[in-house]
């Protein structure tokens, strides 16, 4: 049984849903078959622990196939010095907000 099927049973409640009989040949299915299906609640949780870990450990990362972004060009402008950087961070965080436009204009003018 798959983890998604177990989630479905847990969502509806074992009160209304019985567990299917376990059989199969893979190592995971054989482990599942060792659990007692008559103790529904505990067995469902044991099955979920087993399969949840199995899926997470065996799962592969997802693939991203959409086109990559176009990298921006090389940064040619000189970086502002540390003092100006700490100043602009302070301005951007809301301190002396009214001075920000003037600061940016002056910075842009000197390049």
């Amino acid at each position, binding site marked *: 049984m798959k983890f998604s099927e177990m*989630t479905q049973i847990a969502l509806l409640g074992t009160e209304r849903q019985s567990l299917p009989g376990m059989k199969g040949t893979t190592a995971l299915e054989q482990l599942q078959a060792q659990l007692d299906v008559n103790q529904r*609640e*505990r067995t469902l*949780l044991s099955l979920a622990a087993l399969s*949840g870990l199995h899926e*997470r450990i065996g799962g592969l990362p*997802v693939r991203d196939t959409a086109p990559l972004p176009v990298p921006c060009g090389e940064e040619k402008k000189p970086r502002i010095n540390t003092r100006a950087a700490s100043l602009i961070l*302070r301005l951007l965080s809301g301190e002396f907000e009214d001075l920000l436009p003037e600061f940016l204009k002056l910075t842009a003018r000197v390049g």
Partner: protein
Amino acid sequence: MPWTTEQVLALAPDASSAKSGKELAAPRKWVTLGANEICAWGTVQGSGRNPYQTSVDLAGPAFKCSCPSRKFPCKHGLALFLIFAQQPGAMTETSPPAWTTEWLSKRAEKEEKKNARAAAPEAPPDPEAAAKAAAAAEKRTASREAKISSGMDELAVWMEDLVRSGFATLPGKPSTFWENPAARLVDAQAPGLARRVGALDGITTFGDEWPARLLREVSLLHLAQEGWSQIHSLPEKTQADLRTTIGFTMNQQDVLAQPPVRDRWIIVGQRIAEEDRLRTQRTWLFGTETRRAALCLSFSTGPNQPLDISLIAGTTVDAELVYFPSAWPLRALIKQRYGNAESQIPQLPHRTIAQASAFAAEALAANPWIERVPFALSGVTPIGRAQGWIVRDADGYALPLRVPEAKAWMLNAVAGGKPVAAAGEWDGEEFTPLSVWAEGRFLRL
């Protein structure tokens, strides 16, 4: 070894200290300034009559200041360190004053005493007192284990009810539905499980995936409960992991007695989590030789209890670490450090996302209750997709990010569409980037 502004500001105990430190980080505000290879010092006129005397031990780093502030480090210490990092030319004095050298030698003495204590053989114990103490400890352990067992029985009944009536009945339940069983587990002296049960509150608001998430988490609690009922049949290291999950703590002296692992450790990221009044700082390390990961924790319950500031994200330290016992050792203590921290750009261990995933799988296979592992990816590109932010490697594999929008943009701006080195936490579903290295610079997110 250059320190960056970010690294220094990361030492600030809070935002207001960082701000005052920055304001004071101008050489003209200081009466004297000086530095050598070991330390930096300076005097600054404060509100008191005499100027404050401030020193920084560069090896720790450690701070000392004569001001009355209870913050640690205080703004003077931070400002002095900032000037040292940004304008080393302003540190004109070259021989330290007496108050700095005295403090340094006191620190060295303390360190020596500590080492001597660690090396000294223990005094021969009084057999009668030792037997008494052992009997008392055994009684305490037995009483706690009985409490945990009854707490576990209640937890089992609660979990069975959850599954019997079905998760579909859960949305809209009041917080007390989750808080009550959590509180019972606190009473049963199982704080680790209590935290995990309490954290389930609000899980039904986590998108369409919440039933799977809830089942996954509850099944791990069930695994802990089943494991506890037969703990003595489990392998020793799994017993240790189960005890940690339940919330048993280990005496630090016992941990330090384990064999140490020496390496040059890259401090790949640091994060502070706040829960109620408890602040927990997680510092993630990777050994450059051993390629092992380590987690150092520091706790604080109030403003007068500062978090550990000796490990600075983005630097590399030569140190001996001691791991807590576990089937997949991760949490560790620093036993001994050698030399100063270095801040050159490190080579991160995970070259691909597939490698990082295999690393996480290995951790989970050994310890099913592990909540997060560090990923340190040497080349990934941050991309904003319609379904959210991701990082993608050269093979086309991707990890979804768990990151505030502002930080995602910062990461994106630093990368500029090109691969960067990024490190952070993987919780099994999402990656939280904490650090990024790009264009030869380190940035803490």
